[in-house]
């Protein structure tokens, strides 16, 4: 399965829209595209996961790397529009408490 990565860069803000699956095969591509955005000082990086129906632990690893990078570069990372299955993964691993996840749009199932 493939992963399509659309990036829109604005001033002080980048929006990343993902389509497909994030697994051991596609995670390296995502890391390559996402990390540079978090290295821009004070950049706000928003990742839209509306069209990601499957993610495994290697995908979580990419977001952890990105989070650590935001701490070093005073940038911000925000995940929006997560599918229930993907959101569940962030909840189980406790990562929802250290990564900003915006579930307002989909609501999720609490």
């Amino acid at each position, binding site marked *: 399965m493939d992963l399509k990565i659309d990036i829109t860069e604005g001033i002080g803000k980048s929006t990343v829209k993902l389509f497909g699956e994030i697994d*051991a095969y596609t995670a390296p591509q995502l*890391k390559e595209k996402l990390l540079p955005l978090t290295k821009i000082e004070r950049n706000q990086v928003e990742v839209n996961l509306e069209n990601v129906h499957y993610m*495994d*632990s*290697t995908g*979580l*690893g*990419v977001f*952890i*790397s990105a989070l*650590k*990078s935001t701490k070093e570069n005073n940038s911000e990372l925000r995940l929006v529009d997560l599918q229930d*299955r993907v959101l569940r993964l962030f909840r*189980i*691993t*406790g*990562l929802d*408490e*250290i990564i900003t996840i915006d579930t307002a749009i989909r609501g999720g199932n609490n």
Partner: protein
Amino acid sequence: METLNTDISNYRNLLKHYIEIRDEQSLYGAEQLSKMFIKNNVPPEEIVNLHIQALEELYPDVPEYFRHSMNFLVEIMITYGIAYQENYSLREEQSQLKSEIAVAANMQETLLATTKPETEDLDIGVVSAPANQMSGDYYHFLEGKDNSIGIAIADVIGKGIPAALCMSMIKYSMDSLPEATMSPKTILKNLNRVVERNVDAGMFITMFYIQYLPAKNKIRYASAGHEPGFYYNAETKTFEEIKAKGLVLGVSPDADYREYERTINKGDMVVLLTDGVTECKQGDRFIETEEVLEVIEQYSDLPAQEMVNKVYKHFERMQNFQFRDDFTLLVFKKEV
């Protein structure tokens, strides 16, 4: 290439026979010859050349244009032959790698070995199978002086060799814990510090640690971002999810873990697993948690080890005998 001379006469005779009679038997002979060429690693350009030589010996008046065309074919075959030989040596290399990995997998098994506690109190069953040869799943038993039993189940991000290497670290940290009677939250806090110091950003381990306290008929547990387990109540014959929240190991140096406690009664059962179990697929669809529990319940009257074996076999078949991820399932029942 010593065999080449016999090859030429062999090839020539067979070719002659075929051109004269055109029977199936010579074609079968050709097939055998082809297998022998492969076995002796004869490159394709050499076979084309053999054909040219045989043809010229049989029909000295082969037309000039035909001879040229065969030389053209030789030229085409050279680069093809290199690719063929390269594939051949890559195959050799691959089988060498495979046997090296098999040795490593054996070592891993020895390194990570843990002994199921001999106890009247609990009936414990566990099955752990790697998706490939080496596993990134791990389970471990600790027995305390107060007869408490600690059980850890863990899953490292990714699978295969990198995951396996990372898991050895956990094993040694667990072995060097000062005391087996330490509480689950303290154990996780300790391990988290070790993992955080020793892994790259983006690498992490999930672990569920549960302790059985026979004197109190209680279990206490804590989770570091691990897939939730299940508690089976023998009286109501129902499963409930064991909710425990905590951050995965290796991400934040000062993570704290919450500890939970509950009473466990005779006949009750605790099911621990890794996401290799919950992420089984039937065709294109992920199975639901309820389906996992249904299968477990179906075999719940069996002794724990038989039970997990049956459940494993069930999912193995459902996955066409090819798991996507490492699979670990651990069950214990309170017997008294």
